[in-house]
């Protein structure tokens, strides 16, 4: 896992510049730019860890904590704006450091060793992925190192329909065309009807007798043949509308498809 990763500008500075007593003006700028280059506090920690030039598995977390805190202190001294998560990490590391320095029996739970180990494991994983990313980017990439054909002819598949129809469908279709277009004689069977006129006189005479609300079907002739009933219903409905229009009746229906109520209006 190693130190061959160099895509971050931060690593270009020699490690010992970190401990320099004073920071020259040009270096302030460099420091500021570096801060910009890190992908969060874990990334900064990883960079600092790599400066220890040791395997991440044997790194000294305590030393790393010191380096980080030192870095943050100096950045603050230079009044560089630090993102909140860098400060949160600093606070957490300060806590970790004090816990690590406590006598063993006074250690809280989870133990500082566990916290340190967790941090170390996270650093290892991030380092592994940074390393993997670099190796991935360094491969022979299509369009950069290797190329596909510049002007492929392209493959085209033209779909061609193979039409299917059978004899029976053909003959049946013709038969149906003929049937459909044959002159048709419509016979209307004589059926019992109630004319609008008779419905009008029936409904208006019944309205005159009763001034209460009545359902429309109560106006139909009782015991009528069902077919006559249908006709009577239609005619009576139209008659009711006509009477309402003439101001002789009121209509009321509480709900769609509900019973149609009807009552007369006194002249």
């Amino acid at each position, binding site marked *: 896992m190693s130190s061959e990763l160099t895509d971050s500008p931060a690593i270009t500075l020699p490690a010992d510049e970190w401990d320099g007593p004073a920071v020259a003006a040009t270096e302030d700028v460099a420091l500021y730019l570096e801060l910009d280059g890190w992908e969060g506090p874990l990334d900064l920690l990883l960079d600092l860890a790599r400066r220890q030039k040791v395997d991440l598995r044997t790194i000294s977390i305590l030393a790393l904590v010191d380096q980080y805190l030192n870095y943050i202190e100096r950045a603050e001294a230079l009044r560089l704006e630090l993102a909140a998560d860098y400060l949160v990490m600093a606070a957490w590391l300060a806590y970790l450091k004090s816990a690590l320095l406590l006598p063993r029996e006074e250690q809280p739970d989870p133990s500082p060793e566990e916290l340190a180990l967790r941090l170390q494991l996270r650093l290892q994983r991030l380092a592994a992925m940074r390393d993997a990313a670099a190796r991935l980017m360094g491969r022979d990439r299509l369009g950069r190192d290797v190329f596909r054909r510049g002007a492929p002819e392209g493959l085209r598949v033209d779909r061609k329909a193979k039409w299917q*129809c059978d004899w029976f469908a053909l003959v049946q279709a013709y038969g149906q065309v003929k049937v459909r277009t044959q002159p048709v004689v419509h016979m209307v069977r004589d059926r019992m009807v109630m004319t609008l006129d008779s419905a009008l006189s029936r409904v208006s005479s019944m309205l005159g007798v009763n001034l209460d609300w009545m359902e429309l079907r109560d106006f139909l002739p009782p015991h009528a043949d069902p077919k006559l009933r249908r006709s009577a219903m239609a005619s009576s409905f139209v008659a009711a509308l006509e009477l309402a229009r003439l101001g002789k009746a009121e209509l009321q229906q509480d709900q769609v498809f509900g019973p149609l109520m009807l009552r007369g209006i006194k002249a």
Partner: protein
Amino acid sequence: MTRPDDLVRAVEATLFAAEEPMSAEAISAHLGGADIKAALAELVETYQERGIRLVERGKRWHFQTAPDLAHLLRREREEVRRLSRAATEVLAIVAYHEPVSRAEIEAIRGVQTAKGTLDVLMEAGWVRIVGRREVPGRPVIYATTPEFLTHFGLESRRDLPGLDELKAAGLLDPVEDALAEAMETAGEANESGEGGLASQDESA
């Protein structure tokens, strides 16, 4: 296959990746001024019998698919499709009445016939244009083809059953019956569910 000369490989890759055919000069310039004549000749030779060729067209070089494999670039795929009901009707009318104009087809069907329907029948190879009717407007007239007879297993158009035979075979009745039946059912449905007024009927 032995590894070719590096220059040959470079020319090969350059032409492969090029977006346009390249002149020998352009290839040479691209490869730092190398003399690439021999390399081009070797590549032409190498690819002579393969699925792709290196060819020179108007002093420019490019790879292309071998001419005898050009059909691979544009494949036709056959899809079996059933003739739509409208197309079947039109086909039947053409078969029974040919030669027939589009207006006549529409008169017989009682429905307008989309242009696409006749196109489909012509694409299928069953109907073709056989001339124009010598009436005002000189409409195109259509008839069936020999492929039509073959496809439907007919010796000649005379083998198509006549109307009487269709009727005898019950091919006309079912429609009428079905229609009447359908009307009946629709009527009943209306009877039982005819809106606010009819709802009262049920209680009667």
